[in-house]
Each structure stands twice: as structure tokens, then as C-alpha cells.
């Protein structure tokens, strides 16, 4: 009796152990956007008119674009690993080798991003066919180039933001999760993932612009859709460059301080 249970289960388990992790990750990505879509769908269902100046199709388009931008900008495995590597002492492995730690993780992020984009392309196509959002591709070459530029800047900003947060591990390995959590909450609420930031009340809008978060999701989408163009677009790029430089310097600074404190504990 136990025999076939064992065989059944073992093959079952083996089938799924790592494939499942990967599948779940993709599922979660899609699910998050689907759920936002359901949320808005539910809200509009009753009203079928305009909420804060947006019609239902417009909001749907926005949600769809969030998925597009998020899959490119917000994918970086470095986030998960760096805190752990510092806390456990594995960082030592890198320090003795002639390879820049940041550069190493940046490269890994790039490759993971590529993988992510590949799969997202597939998922986006399916969702597009299912939901049929009204997405108008920008026809203007300048807009397209601008979009690509801004996506690149967003990704870099996200990378250095994450990295700076994780470097907290140098001083307080126990708090890495705390800061990670905080960044997560901020990105969830302040980057435009649920609704366009233009819907924020004025005070909140002002506060949000003191942070780099709007530039992760909201502004890339705005450029894509054409809400922002010309001079305003240049202003956005300038702001993003500013944040990029700030975060880059910040991460380098924290790194140089942190590495001195680094006690190589755990090994």
C-alpha cells in the first residue's frame, strides 16, 4: 500500500519542486494585475461612467500598461539575495575576487530581466487577447525612443534603490526585511501601480514627487500614452537623471562605509 503512495508522491514532488516555484512566480505576476483589473472592473461595474476623469476602458488600459512597465522595471533578483549574502558572510566570496560586487549583481539583474521580459511578452499577449484593452501604440519615433530611455532610467533607479536598501544589512542584518518591506509598501502605493498618480489629492501629489517612486511606473506609462511629451518629457528625464545620480552616489557611499563595518560574520 505504502509502495504506490511513495512512488506516486515522489514522482509528483520531483516533478514540481522547482518548476512550481517558477510557475508560481509567473502566476503571481499576472494575478496581481488581474486582481487590480478586477478591482477596477468591480468599481466601474456599478457606475459605468467616469471616475476621477477616467473611463473604464482608460483605466483598463492603464492597468495593462502597469503590467508592461512593471515587468521591465521592477524585476531584479539582486533584491532578494544581497541582504542575505551580507548577513551570512557570503559576501566574502566576492570580495576576494577581482569582480565588482555591484557590477556582478547588475549583470545578473540584466539577465534576469531578459528572462522576465521574454515570459512577460507571452503573458501580456494572452492578457491582451483576453481583456482587449485599448492600447494605442505610440506612432511617433521620438515617443518610442523617449519611452525606451525612460524605461532604462527607471530600471537603473530601481536597481540602485533596491541595492541601497539592502546595504542596510551591513549594520543591521536583522532589519533588512524591515526596509525591504517598507520599500515594497512604498512602491505598491506610490509608484502608480494601482491607479494613475494624477488622481492623488494635491498635497499627496506634492509629497510623492519628493520621492523617486513615481518614476518607476507612472511616468513611463505617461510617456507611452502621450500624456507627457515635449518639454514636460524633458523635465521628467531631468528629474529621473537627478534621482539616478542621487541613488547611485548613495549606494556607493553606503557601500564604502558598510564594507568597513563588514565583519564577515557567519563564516
Amino acid at each position, binding site marked *: 500500500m505504502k509502495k504506490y503512495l*511513495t512512488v506516486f508522491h515522489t514522482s509528483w514532488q520531483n*516533478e514540481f519542486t522547482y518548476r512550481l516555484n517558477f510557475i508560481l512566480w509567473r502566476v503571481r505576476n499576472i494575478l496581481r494585475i488581474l486582481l487590480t483589473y478586477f478591482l477596477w472592473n468591480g468599481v466601474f461595474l456599478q457606475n459605468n461612467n467616469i471616475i476621477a476623469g477616467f473611463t473604464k476602458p482608460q483605466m483598463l488600459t492603464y492597468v495593462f500598461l502597469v503590467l508592461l512597465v512593471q515587468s521591465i522595471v521592477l524585476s531584479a533578483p539582486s533584491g532578494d539575495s544581497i541582504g542575505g549574502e551580507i548577513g551570512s558572510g557570503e559576501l566574502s566570496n566576492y570580495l576576494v575576487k577581482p569582480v565588482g560586487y555591484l557590477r556582478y549583481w547588475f549583470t545578473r539583474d540584466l539577465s534576469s530581466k531578459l528572462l522576465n521580459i521574454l515570459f512577460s511578452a507571452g503573458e501580456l499577449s494572452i492578457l491582451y487577447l483576453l481583456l482587449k484593452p485599448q492600447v494605442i501604440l505610440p506612432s511617433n519615433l521620438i515617443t518610442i525612443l523617449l519611452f525606451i530611455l525612460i524605461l532604462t532610467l527607471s530600471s537603473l533607479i530601481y536597481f540602485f534603490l533596491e541595492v541601497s536598501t539592502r546595504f542596510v544589512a551591513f549594520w543591521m542584518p536583522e532589519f533588512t526585511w524591515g526596509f525591504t518591506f517598507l520599500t515594497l509598501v512604498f512602491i505598491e502605493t506610490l509608484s502608480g501601480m494601482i491607479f494613475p498618480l494624477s488622481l492623488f489629492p494635491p498635497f499627496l501629489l506634492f509629497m510623492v514627487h519628493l520621492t523617486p517612486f513615481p518614476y518607476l511606473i507612472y511616468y513611463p506609462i505617461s510617456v507611452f500614452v502621450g500624456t507627457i511629451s515635449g518639454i514636460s518629457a524633458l523635465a521628467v528625464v531631468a528629474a529621473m537623471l537627478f534621482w539616478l545620480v542621487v541613488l547611485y552616489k548613495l549606494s556607493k557611499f553606503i557601500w564604502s562605509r558598510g564594507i568597513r563595518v563588514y565583519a564577515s560574520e557567519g563564516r
Partner: protein
Amino acid sequence: MPIITVNHLKKHYQVHQKDPGLSGSIKSLFHRKYYDVKAVDGVSFSIEPGELVGFIGPNGAGKTTTLKVLSGLLYPSSGDVSVLGYIPWERKPAFQKQFSLVMGQKNQLWWDLPAMESFLLNKEIYEVADDQFKNTLDELVDLLDVKDLLKVQVRKLSLGQRMKMELIAALIHSPKILFLDEPTIGLDVVMQKKMRDFIKDYNRKFNATILLTSHYMDDVKELCKRTIIIDKGKLLFDGALSEIIKKYADHKLLTIVFSNGVEQKDLEKYGVIKEFESPKVVISVKREEAPKVAAKILEKFPVEDLNIEEPQIEDIIREVFTGKDVA
């Protein structure tokens, strides 16, 4: 009346193979090859109360798997097992209260709390009476000499001190059987000895039945009168260490110190030369011929000192494992 009986225990797994590299990963997404692992393949033995038995074998031999079946963590593929009159994998609380499992390098102590807290927790889990708890605790603390460390956070203790606390936590409910899985792994030589001494003392003092697994010969040499050798899931030997020597060691070692230099090739006809570091030489000679060869060497060469010894247990067992002399 044996306290543990194992009858034709078998435990098989199916493991999948993956070719290395990226193409291997992609391939494994679609089609996986499985092969059978016979972790335990028909093992039988029985153990009387109060015995101190060692399971030795190379890594992957099936020792830990056997132990896990005995403690109820794994279901066997086939076979009967009885521990303290219970079927282990039914995991009856009455059974679980009477044994303890300690796995080397795995800990059950709460990291950020003093060890005492973990002891109190186990007291509740194992339902140990207050006075018995106090007595056992005092005895163990005494035996391990950790009186001042009880209120210190576990994370602040050294590895050796932590090991001691782990032992107390595992023994606070005075288990009748103690399963020790690789208890000395990762410890330095001094700690290893202390651990072994403790196990010996505990077995003697409390008459607890102790089963330990190890791939370190020294553990077994020091502790176990009775040794069970397992390899590739099969039981190769069950008996006293001295028996192994007699059964498997068909040779003896002559250790000779010469007073003058001697050529290696001159000695080669007497036996297998194990060590040649002039003036000291170690020759392996067939058991029956040892006295004769010794006499001849004394006759022919200038010998300062000559010793006839049993071969190292390690060497014997290594030969057993490489299949030279299987029972």
C-alpha cells in the same frame, strides 16, 4: 526482551537525474529520468535495553534513513519495526515521550533566548513533572558543567557550549532511548572527545539505550562495544569490534625499527610494505605467517625494535566497504 526490533526493513526512493548545464535544465522541464535509490535494503537487527550501539558506514549508506524510520519520521517501503513496543511511524505521543532524537548540526534551541527557556518548553511538551525536571536538570548541568550558562542567550554561546545545551534539551525528559545522528560532526577534536565521554557516561549512569550513527571511526572505537556496519542499504556486520578484526583482518602489521639502513627491495619479499621511512618500516603480513616472518627478519636484519600489531580499524572497515571481504 529487545527494546528495538527491526525486521527486513526496506526504504526505497525515486530520484530524478538532471544533465548539467542549461540544456539539461530545459530538458528536465519536459522529460525526467528516474532511478531507484535503495536507501535501506532489507536490514534486520534487534537491540536490548541499555545497549550502546554504533551504526557506521560511508555517507549515503542508509544509517540516517534507518534512524529516521526508528524515530517515526519516515514510513518504510516494507518491513516491520518495533520500538518500545510501538510502531514508530504511528507517532503516538506516548511513544514520542520516551525517546529523543539529536541530529548533529541541527538545533532545536531558540536562538535569541537563554537555553533555560528551551528546557522549560520541552518540559511542557514532554509533560515532565516539576520535581523530576529539577532533578534531571541539575544532574545534566552538573555532568556537562554549564551551570553559569543557563541564563545566557544561545546565540552568544560557543559551538561547544551550544552542543551541551542541545544535549540537555534533548535529555530533559529522561528518554529511554536516545537516537544520535552524527553527533560529532563539525566539532573539533577536543569537543568530539567530550561528546563521546558524555555519551558513555550517560549510557552508564542512566542505562539509556543509545543508538548513534557516524562516519567517524573514533566515535565507534571509543563508544561502542557493538557495531553495525551498513553500506548501500545493506547490513554488512553486526557484532563486537573485536569480531570485525578477527573476521576481516586476515593480516597483521609488523612495525620494525632498524638500527642500520635497509633497502626497500630487500624487504618486499616478506610482505606488503605499508610505510617506508627509514629506519622505521611497516609491513603487512598474512596473519598466520606473522610470527614466522618476524623471526626471519630478526634473523636477517639488524633490528632495534619489532612490534606485531592488529591493523587499524579504519583500514579494515575501508576494505569492508570497498567490498573486499563481505560476510
